[in-house]
């Protein structure tokens, strides 16, 4: 097909257009779609702001390196630091908080192009697969969605892709870029929890694949090793603390008591025989459970139809991939298998390792924790497409043009459906999931709170204090002085008081007697005898907050 020859010839223009498309899909209305910021985004934004103003995080810790305590969920540090310059330039708002994710998302598209170029450097046609991979990534529902909210994983993905690119490049050119590759992998490691498992395994795999070449460039490897070790020191210290395991213990499948129960039941049914104890050993059952969670990531329903069950990661009626990509994917798997070279092995290894960390968690399939898949799907599809084009070239007839036009129409229509659903419907239907209303409620309260002794704010929607900090006018050091912070049994921080604000799960309280109190609650929480002042609605028309005062 001549079209593709032309594209390959003018690949700089094509690449520019693809990156532009990617940027557009990631930045257009970034501050209003998704309609509002959910807890983790706001928390990251506030910690960045706090670092910017004071050099300390919300818990007054000076430049945390290994992690940010945040809600007690111990967030990875890279996103928060990456966000500091944008908060400085753009101010404390949604756009600034989401900017790094959209930016790194766009850069990942570019990085994917160079990665494919490097990967297929020995073959004569490497431009086309590179362009195709970048293009598929630029329109990927999975990647667009994760690039449009302040997700740490999205930065980790960029550094992973960049790391592999630099790794391959340095192997080919035997250059100092190897050190950069190591730094990139370390940053990915620091950027997101899944990558703390994925990156070490993946790097080991790369070392095994390229052991011969690495041996010839020992000095770079040693330098990179030393640098990586130094950078790892803060993390190693963190690893010794119990809090590092907190998050894992909370979400992992290996604490599932049902499995132990099932194992015991089967052993008992086998009248406690030795054979029964071997067959029904809980490790066997945990192995099978892990396989189940691992396979969840390859469930066609998840991949092509509904996407992640969490509406913050997916539209619910649109898959992580487009359905028309399935034939390309199958063709790609087949062609890479047939090539049987190291590059194909690299892609498959990456692909199979991608969900290894995410599969240890209870909620699977999980689009965010398995963003490690990106851009393997895209590279496989690009190989498939190139293979199909090559195959079709040999068979004549006008049917092939017809087939391509048909395929193109299906592709364009499903892309349009995704974009339409995302920008028109998604925010409206799921504004609740994005904690919509906090921003508006806090801004309204900030304007009138001077007339009241106390502001009672509901905890019904979770973690209100962070919204008051982010959208209100409380300075970080004032927050440290004038707040009540406690930790619950799970290690989460709860803020019950912040200046005039009191956060609690009920509105009426005997301690309010004799004070002039402003109440901010869910519509069903506000007693009918209160005087309603204002309200905030979800975008689908349901009530979010009612602002009222006691009479």
């Amino acid at each position: 097909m001549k079209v593709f020859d032309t594209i390959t010839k003018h690949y700089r223009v094509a690449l520019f257009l693809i990156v532009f498309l990617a940027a557009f899909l990631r930045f257009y209305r970034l501050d209003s779609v998704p309609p509002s910021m959910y807890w983790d985004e706001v928390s990251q934004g506030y910690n960045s702001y706090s670092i910017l103003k004071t050099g300390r995080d919300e818990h007054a810790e000076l430049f945390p390196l290994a992690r940010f305590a945040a809600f007690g969920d111990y967030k990875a540090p890279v996103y928060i630091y990456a966000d500091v310059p944008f908060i400085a330039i753009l101010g404390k708002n949604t756009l600034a908080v989401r900017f790094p994710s959209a930016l790194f998302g766009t850069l990942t598209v570019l990085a994917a192009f160079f990665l494919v170029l490097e990967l297929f450097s020995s073959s004569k046609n490497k431009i086309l697969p590179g362009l195709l991979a970048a293009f598929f990534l630029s329109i990927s529902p999975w990647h667009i969605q994760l690039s449009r909210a302040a997700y740490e994983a999205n930065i980790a993905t960029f550094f992973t892709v960049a790391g592999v690119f630099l790794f391959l490049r340095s192997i080919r050119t035997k250059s100092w870029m190897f050190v950069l590759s190591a730094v990139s992998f370390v940053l990915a490691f620091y950027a997101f929890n899944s990558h703390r498992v994925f990156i070490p395994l993946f790097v080991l795999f790369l070392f095994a694949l390229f052991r011969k070449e690495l041996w010839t460039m020992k000095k770079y490897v040693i330098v990179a090793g030393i640098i990586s070790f130094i950078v790892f020191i803060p993390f190693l210290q963190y690893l010794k603390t119990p809090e590092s395991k907190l998050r894992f213990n909370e979400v992992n499948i290996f604490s599932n008591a049902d499995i132990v129960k099932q194992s015991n039941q089967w052993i008992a049914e086998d009248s406690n025989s030795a054979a029964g104890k071997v067959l029904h050993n809980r490790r066997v059952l945990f192995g099978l459970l892990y396989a189940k969670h691992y396979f969840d990531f390859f469930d066609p329903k998840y991949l092509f139809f509904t996407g992640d069950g969490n509406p913050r990661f997916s539209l619910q009626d649109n898959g992580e991939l487009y359905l028309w990509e399935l034939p390309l994917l199958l063709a790609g798997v087949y062609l890479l298998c047939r090539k049987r070279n190291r590059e194909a092995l690299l892609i498959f290894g990456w692909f199979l390792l991608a969900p290894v960390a995410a599969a240890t968690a209870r909620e699977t399939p999980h689009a965010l924790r398995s963003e490690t898949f990106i851009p393997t799907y895209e590279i496989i599809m690009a190989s498939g497409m190139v293979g199909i084009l090559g195959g079709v070239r040999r068979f004549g007839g006008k049917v092939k043009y017809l087939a391509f036009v048909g395929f193109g129409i299906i592709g364009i229509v499903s892309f349009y459906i995704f974009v339409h659903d995302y920008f028109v419907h998604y925010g409206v239907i799921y504004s609740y999931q994005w904690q919509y209303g906090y921003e508006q409620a806090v801004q309204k309260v900030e304007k009138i709170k001077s007339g009241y002794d106390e502001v009672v704010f509901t905890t019904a929607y979770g973690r209100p204090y962070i919204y008051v900090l982010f959208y209100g006018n409380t300075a970080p050091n004032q927050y440290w002085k004038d707040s009540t912070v406690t930790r619950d049994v799970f290690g989460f921080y709860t803020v019950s008081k912040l200046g005039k604000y009191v956060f609690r799960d009920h509105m009426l309280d005997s301690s309010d007697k004799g004070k002039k109190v402003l109440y901010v609650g869910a519509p069903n929480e506000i007693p009918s005898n209160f005087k309603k002042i204002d309200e905030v609605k979800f975008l689908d028309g349901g009530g979010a907050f009612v602002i009222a005062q006691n009479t």
Partner: protein
Amino acid sequence: MKNKLFILLFALILILGTFLRFWQLGKVPDSMDWDEVALGYNAYSLLQTGKDEYGVSHPLVFKSFGNYELPLYFYIDTISIKIFGENEFATRFPSALLGSISILLVYLFVSEFFYEEKYRRTVSFLSMLFFAISPWSIQFSRLAFEQNTGMFLILLGSWLFLKGLRVKKIRYLIIATISIALSVYVYHSAKLFAPLFFGTLLLYSFMFFKKRKNLFSIIILLFIVCNIFWLTDKNSVARGKSVTFTSHSSQILQISTKETIQEEASGDKIGALLHNRRLVFVDTYIQNYLSHFAPNWLFITGDLNRHHAPGMGLLYLFSLPFIVAGMIFLTRETLESFSKRKFLPFVLIFAWFFIAPVASALAFDSPSAERSLTFLPTWQIFEALGWIALFSLVRSKNYRRIIIAIGAGLLFINFIYFSHQYFAHTNTDFEKDWLYGYKQSVQFANQEKSAGKKVTFASDFEQMYIYYLFFSKYDPKSYIASGGSSRIWQPCFNIDNIYFGDCLPKLSKGDIYMSTKIPSAKNMKPIKKIYYTNGQTAVTAYEIL
């Protein structure tokens, strides 16, 4: 392989496969679901009276519980019930027998289609082995579920068809056509599968029929004639509609309805078009279709508990790498045969594989191991090819030995695990799914009946009357004479002194009320309980005070 050794292994596998299908048949699973019982009793009734439970003489469609079952298995069942009497073993016997014969057919079929002399015997042999120990096949061979008979007929037809093409004998082709067409009279999904599959066979044998146009017309005519009987029966079509997902659309359309409302408010015409329900239905159909390839369904969980062994999927987990390798190998062969413009039977296997879930995907509860049973034996053939593919990849003899040892070892462990789970744990883990307690309730009710009491089965029993008829071997003649099954649609009806449904008002002091739940009425005292193995109560019998 040496010939003697081969024959020995061949026989061993046949024996093993047959053993796995017949050992404890009727005892594992130890209860029957209502469709099986209905099959058994209707066959018994046919045998005694020539009529079904409704008194219809030699029906083409069995009304049963209003689900209009296709007839073939009912008629086949009469033979085994004649021989073994009316019981669980006899009801399930034909399925187990045809499942066992299918093991041999897999060998014959594969050796018919695998063109490369060098590996032919090995591939056929491995396919047969994997089929003999297949959890999927064993599961359905041990139940009176019609699909297994359908699979047998398709397999038989395919083998005879290929053989007919090779030896150029018309009689094989005729029998093959009849066999495939007959599968349509076994179960509903075949109405879609059989024509598609038969069409594929004809396309595949295009070169053969090009020179034999008369034969071609005869065969097509034969196929159509065989299908006419069900096409003209409207009840038979009705059942198909009731289980499709379009009849359960409110959930499927949930999101698109919300979106449409929003479009209407903003007047976006193109937007409204995108959320059209037809598009959603197409999307749902493809989703259901692809759900039959979900790794969890295949290898880890399966679907309904009645369709798999406890803690197992439908295929062995350790078969996965071989199946994938086999698919890639088969793709290569297929593509190469295409580029040589030579239609090798490999195309046929892929066609079979991809047509298998076409009907099943229409149902609202996809994926279903039962409705997509015609997948068999394609997965096993892939697995066998996978071994060959790996073999051709590895040149060194020592490595080959290591691969065989590891692969076979893991598969053996998996096989042991399955056999254990199936035979040792099905009855305890899935007894609720298999409605344990129904048979025991009937036995108890008959005791009380002979003591002169009235017994009522509450409406929370599913289709209890058929269990009563089956397990008390109730004389079909007198059952039909007293009105037959057209009475089951009444809220309360009786067979002699046994009452079914909401019959409390008809009971008086001293009568028996049986239920799987705790009744709300106070004037009762429990006199007998039937327990599951874990100690929970399955059924309680109460005496009216």
